[in-house]
């Protein structure tokens, strides 16, 4: 620093002293100094050279000092170096100033930057203009209102017509970003003239500029097919660009506009052909870009399989590919697999199954199964390939293979059962629940063909309680099947499993299923056989297709993160719920069989509630956008496997935990068809389970994907609303709340709805909502009608349901004998009603026992002329007593019931109430 000596001598004078003081360690001194500076400023001395030192003092808690600094700032911001630099003769410096200026996020200062920015937007030098264009976006981020007020948006729009392509590109980028936060304004104003300007700039600007322009073009909706075609023609050359992002953005524009072209035109066909090579070329890029390309190709293949159907070979996995590329390639291979190429695909898959990465190998094995299910002609080859793989005895390969073979059995029943023997050899090596369950299912399903099926299943029984629920349930079903097929030899086994399931298990699902089977078997083996061994629905070929509306939306996002995650942007971008959802253009006119783009409301539209959700967030957002191919794989497995796994004989309605309720539901609907079949025991069973049929209260179609079914029950003296919430939409739901309207019994929830974790798509959750009757009362029609409002992050939904009166029967409904007698006499005759119950074969004791379980108490029993007379009482939560006389004649299955109420009841209410009670009692008496 030899030059520095020239300066040292000059560092004297007022300014120098002030500078030193401003940098003093003591706060007081600094404050003094700033005051001096302000004073100097006031008298008109130029203290602008102290700018950095004064700004330094801004970092203080002292309010007084801060205000002084701000005062200084406001005075000198105009002559702030940044502002003066905006006038510098050197365009590089002007641009640097305007670039930096946008990064100062102080409102007060920003105001002073407007003038220089306005100048820079009209600068003679394109370098300054292109920088100024981006600066408008920066400023908009800081103070949107100001940008609008100052008319910068208009200046930006003017830049679209700029002579310099890079200025155009940056202006487009800035406008696109700004317009995202103004979903409704037509900021970009894409009209044919502007589009033409963009297309001209497209040929001339940098690779990045081309991306901005193409992304912007994809938002344009051409007015007719001619315009669409002419844009396509000018975009197609971009497919040869070296930059993969340019290629993908061009593909996006073409994929969108293809929708508008007539399907039979030559141009349409040529364009489709032109799309394939560039997509393939993307795969020779670096792995990260390959990954992005593959995720997009996955979408494109689902939307337009014809584009790449000839190119399956390029998706063959290379030994050195990173694992994420391998898994994606495998996914696309399956989608492209067809009769024509299945031999090659299979050979490849077999090769992959010997690789090292466990996830990859599993996916490959699963893929073989999917090939079999997809291409019928190949099923045999696939099965033999799987058998070869089982021979390798590599543990996870064997297990995965058995899981997919189970699916193959379901798709092609009675075709490949000859291989069961080979499968059975591997029984011991299976340690994963999925594989064990699959194997048990196979043994149970084909018990009649396996000589030692009983031994095999028995071997699983030993460690019954250590197994996972999935395995336990399957094992239970399998043994019941076995019993129904070979009743003579397996009675002991079935007894054993039923007692294990019902008596020794704490798992309610298992216990309930056990009871059902037990009752079924003990009452009516024929029906049991019909139900348990009923024909199963076939499984579908394609399991993991993206839902069409979502797919169309994702096509509009090709190249972007949304296409990588396979999620709409609002699933992972904060505060984007206001953003207009993109959709494919719809073809105008009537040329050809135009596929109408019907958009079922599967994905709930985003309301402002999501914003609420974000603000009220209970915890960190749970793994929302974390998609990786592995998870997708898991979903496959569920889609293809679960229904066959859990439900077995019965079609399951919700693939979730509320399984048993549905099982009963189906059983009921089966048995109800012929009244002769209703066995009292079965109904008794229902009563034991304190069970009412789950009714769908709120269908998914009416509630943007939320389905609520439920029932009411009374347990241990408390009332509950047992509900099952199922998310049938594609996004998660959170933030649930429930409220009742005023009702006849004043019923309200005791606690708020406790749903703490978000409800993921296709998931269900069972909720037991405790209730009490201390709320406001209002007469409803019918009397037991209940109106409910349920809210979630999407919307508020309303439904109404009928409360079964039985839940209002309280535990202390047993009347004193004397009181009973007195009351019975006091009740006026018009309150008395009689009716008969037909076809009932119970004796008096059982009846009274059963009724007692439901809080209907027997006060006295008499035998009059060979008839049993039961006197009973019950009490409702609102204090109303109901008294009953039940007459049972031995030999005559008809019961006579006489009911009375105490006088408190409002007379015009009585018939209504009576009707409901009658319905209710019928259930118990019969």
């Amino acid at each position, binding site marked *: 620093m030899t030059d520095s000596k020239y300066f040292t001598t000059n560092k004297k004078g007022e300014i120098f002293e002030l500078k030193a003081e401003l940098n003093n360690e003591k706060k007081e001194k600094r404050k003094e100094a700033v005051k001096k500076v302000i004073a100097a400023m006031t008298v008109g001395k130029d203290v602008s050279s102290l700018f950095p030192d004064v700004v330094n003092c801004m970092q203080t808690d002292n309010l007084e000092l801060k205000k002084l600094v701000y005062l200084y700032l406001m005075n000198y911001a105009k002559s702030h170096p940044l502002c003066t630099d905006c006038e510098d*003769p050197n*365009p*590089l410096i002007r*641009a640097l100033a305007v670039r930096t200026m*946008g990064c100062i*996020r102080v409102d007060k200062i920003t105001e002073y930057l407007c003038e220089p920015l306005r100048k820079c937007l009209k600068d003679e030098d*394109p*370098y*300054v203009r*292109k920088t100024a264009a981006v600066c408008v976006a*920066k400023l908009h981020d800081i103070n949107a209102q100001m940008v609008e007020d100052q008319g910068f948006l208009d200046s930006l729009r003017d830049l679209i017509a700029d002579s*310099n*392509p*890079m200025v155009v590109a*940056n202006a487009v980028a800035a406008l696109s970003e700004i317009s995202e936060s103004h979903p409704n304004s037509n900021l970009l104003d894409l009209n044919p003239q502007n589009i033409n300007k963009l297309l001209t700039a497209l040929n001339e*600007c*940098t690779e*990045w500029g081309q991306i901005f322009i193409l*992304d912007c073009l994809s938002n344009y909706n051409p007015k007719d097919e001619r315009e669409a075609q002419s844009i396509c023609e000018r975009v197609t*050359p971009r497919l*040869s*660009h*070296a*930059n*993969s*992002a340019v290629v*993908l*953005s061009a593909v996006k524009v073409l994929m969108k506009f293809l929708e508008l072209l007539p399907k039979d035109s030559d141009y349409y066909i040529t364009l489709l052909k032109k799309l394939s*090579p560039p997509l*393939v*070329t993307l795969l*020779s890029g670096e792995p*990260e*870009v390959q*990954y*992005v*390309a593959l995720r997009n190709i996955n979408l494109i293949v689902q939307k337009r399989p014809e584009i790449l159907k000839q190119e399956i070979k390029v998706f*063959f996995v*290379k*030994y050195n590919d*990173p*694992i*994420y590329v391998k898994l994606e390639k495998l996914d696309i291979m399956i989608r492209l697999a067809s009769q024509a190429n299945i031999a090659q695909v299979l*050979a490849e898959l077999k*090769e992959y199954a*010997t*690789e090292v990465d466990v996830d990859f190998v599993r996916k490959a094995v699963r893929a073989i199964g999917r090939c079999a299910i997809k291409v019928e002609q190949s099923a045999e080859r696939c099965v033999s390939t799987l058998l070869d793989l089982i021979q390798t*005895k*590599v543990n996870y390969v064997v297990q995965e293979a058995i899981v997919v073979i189970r699916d193959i059995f379901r798709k092609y029943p009675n075709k490949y059962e000859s291989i069961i023997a080979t499968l059975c050899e591997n029984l011991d090596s299976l340690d994963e629940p999925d594989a064990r369950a699959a194997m048990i299912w196979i043994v149970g399903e084909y018990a009649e063909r396996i000589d030692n099926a009983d031994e095999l299943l028995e071997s699983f029984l030993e460690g019954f309680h250590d197994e996972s629920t999935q395995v336990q349930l399957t094992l239970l079903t399998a043994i019941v099947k076995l019993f129904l097929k070979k009743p003579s030899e397996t009675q002991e086994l079935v007894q054993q499993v039923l007692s294990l399931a019902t008596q020794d298990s704490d798992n309610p699902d298992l216990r309930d299923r056990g009871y059902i089977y037990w009752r079924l078997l003990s009452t009516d083996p024929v029906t049991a056989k019909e139900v348990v061994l009923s024909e199963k629905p076939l499984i579908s070929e394609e399991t993991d297709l993206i839902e069409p509306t979502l797919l169309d939306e994702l096509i509009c*996002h090709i*190249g*972007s*993160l949304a296409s*990588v*995650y396979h999620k709409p942007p609002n699933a*992972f*971008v*904060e505060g984007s719920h206001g953003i207009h959802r993109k959709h494919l253009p719809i073809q105008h006119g009537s040329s050809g069989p135009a596929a109408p783009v019907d958009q079922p409301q599967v994905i709930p539209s985003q309301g402002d509630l999501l914003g609420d959700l974000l603000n009220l967030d209970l915890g*960190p957002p749970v793994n929302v956008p974390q998609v*990786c191919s592995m998870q997708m794989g898991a979903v496959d497995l569920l889609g293809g496997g679960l229904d066959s796994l859990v439900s077995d004989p019965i079609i399951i309605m919700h693939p979730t935990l509320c399984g048993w309720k549905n099982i009963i539901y189906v059983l009921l609907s089966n048995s109800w068809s012929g009244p002769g079949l209703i066995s009292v025991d079965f109904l008794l069973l229902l009563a034991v389970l304190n069970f009412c049929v789950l009714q769908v209260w709120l269908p998914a179609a009416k509630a943007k994907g939320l389905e609520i079914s439920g029932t009411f029950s009374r347990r241990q003296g408390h009332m509950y609303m047992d509900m099952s919430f199922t998310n049938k939409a594609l996004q998660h739901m959170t933030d649930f709340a429930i409220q009742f309207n005023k009702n006849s019994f004043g019923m309200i929830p005791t606690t708020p709805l406790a749903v703490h974790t978000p409800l993921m798509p296709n998931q269900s959750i069972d909720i037991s909502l405790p209730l009490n009757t201390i709320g406001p009362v209002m007469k409803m029609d019918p009397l037991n009608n209940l109106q409910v409002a349920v809210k979630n992050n999407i919307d508020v939904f309303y439904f109404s349901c009928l409360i079964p009166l039985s839940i209002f029967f309280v535990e202390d409904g047993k009347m004193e004998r004397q009181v009973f007698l007195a009351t019975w006499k006091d009740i006026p005759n018009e309150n008395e009603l009689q009716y008969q119950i037909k076809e009932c074969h119970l004796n008096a004791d059982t009846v009274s026992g059963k009724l007692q379980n439901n809080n209907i108490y027997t006060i006295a029993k008499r035998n009059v002329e060979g008839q049993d007379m039961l006197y009973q009482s019950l009490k409702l939560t609102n204090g109303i007593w109901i008294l009953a006389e039940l007459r049972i004649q031995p030999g005559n299955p008809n019961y006579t019931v006489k009911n009375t109420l105490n006088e408190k009841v409002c007379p015009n209410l009585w018939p209504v109430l009576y009707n409901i009670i009658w319905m209710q009692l019928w259930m118990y008496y019969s």
Partner: protein
Amino acid sequence: MIGGLFIYNHKGEVLISRVYRDDIGRNAVDAFRVNVIHARQQVRSPVTNIARTSFFHVKRSNIWLAAVTKQNVNAAMVFEFLYKMCDVMTAYFGKISEENIKNNFVLIYELLDEILDFGYPQNSETGALKTFITQQGIKSQTKEEQSQITSQVTGQIGWRREGIKYRRNELFLDVLESVNLLMSPQGQVLSAHVSGRVVMKSYLSGMPECKFGMNDKIVIDKQGKGGSTDDAGKSSGKQSIAIDDCTFHQCVRLSKFDSERSISFIPPDGEYELMRYRTTKDIILPFRVIPLVREVGRTKLEVKVVIKSNFKPSLLAQKIEVRIPTPLNTSGVQVICMKGKAKYKASENAIVWKIKRMAGMKESQISAEIELLPTNDKKKWARPPISMNFEVPFAPSGLKVRYLKVFEPKLNYSDHDVIKWVRYIGRSGIYETRC
């Protein structure tokens, strides 16, 4: 758009941190380190989403480059930008290493400021950048020079500045191909393709207009139609090649290629990649590998590999290397080879057989006995494919440069005055034979 850009060393220490957007907080730097760099498992995706923030990363040797965003950005663009960033850094200070980055961090910040504005990539051509971002500090520039710089950076020909002068106008064309093969043990070609690059080094004065021609089937067939004789069509059919797809440097006028299939451009100064292409038809596979693996009992493997060269005898292949994988439980290997040197490399689990040179239409063989330790590991050996490396002095795709014409109307040199060099190099890409 890109919200921030971080560079980490292999330990996860931040070397460069540049934040462009307010929504990216400081904790983003740590989130990536904790969740990706220090993650126990192997990286499962180049895009990671952590707490609603997306991280894109690429790795160069042991340096991590990560771009961060909270928006729905163009993912392909972010990766392309990261690659470009690497190219720019390499052009400025050579290899991307921790030391180089630390030594040049001011320069890197300056570059980042220029090529990324508010997360939007700007002109990132090194040719242009080097005119005004220099490590020597700001040179005093005349007004003309300044406006020249800005017009170049923003102009239509952003990759070349005006007023370049050479005493000798010269250009070098390298046709670099990598030939990829996957062959079944039975010798069936499962997949084969050539990915080629035409790299040009141009030392030309002024703003020369260039036109590049090769034996592209579509072009030759078009010309053949003009001659319209069957013979010409047939003979050109042999000499021309079918290019599946090609991509070009941004200097090439794509609309012209699309309409006339002619490749015309004003080249950047110095070295750059003119085009990339891909072919899959009629590939000359320079070598054929014939493997024979036999398991002798549980503790011994016999491997015999024959390689055959399949090109003109007058040509010489170089740097031939055959890599024969061995099982993990290999205890000893004996190798006999006819030519070159072969060695068992225990650390790489492979026998590496190297041959310096080999002429066309020859054959060579290696046989090895591999002794194995008995293991009770049930997991079978995956049998990775035998891979091969080589370099041959021709283009396996059959591509030929037909012409490269240079016109510079303003200066007084003609196409004939330019000295042109063309070289063909075929290298092995992933050249594997399953065994």
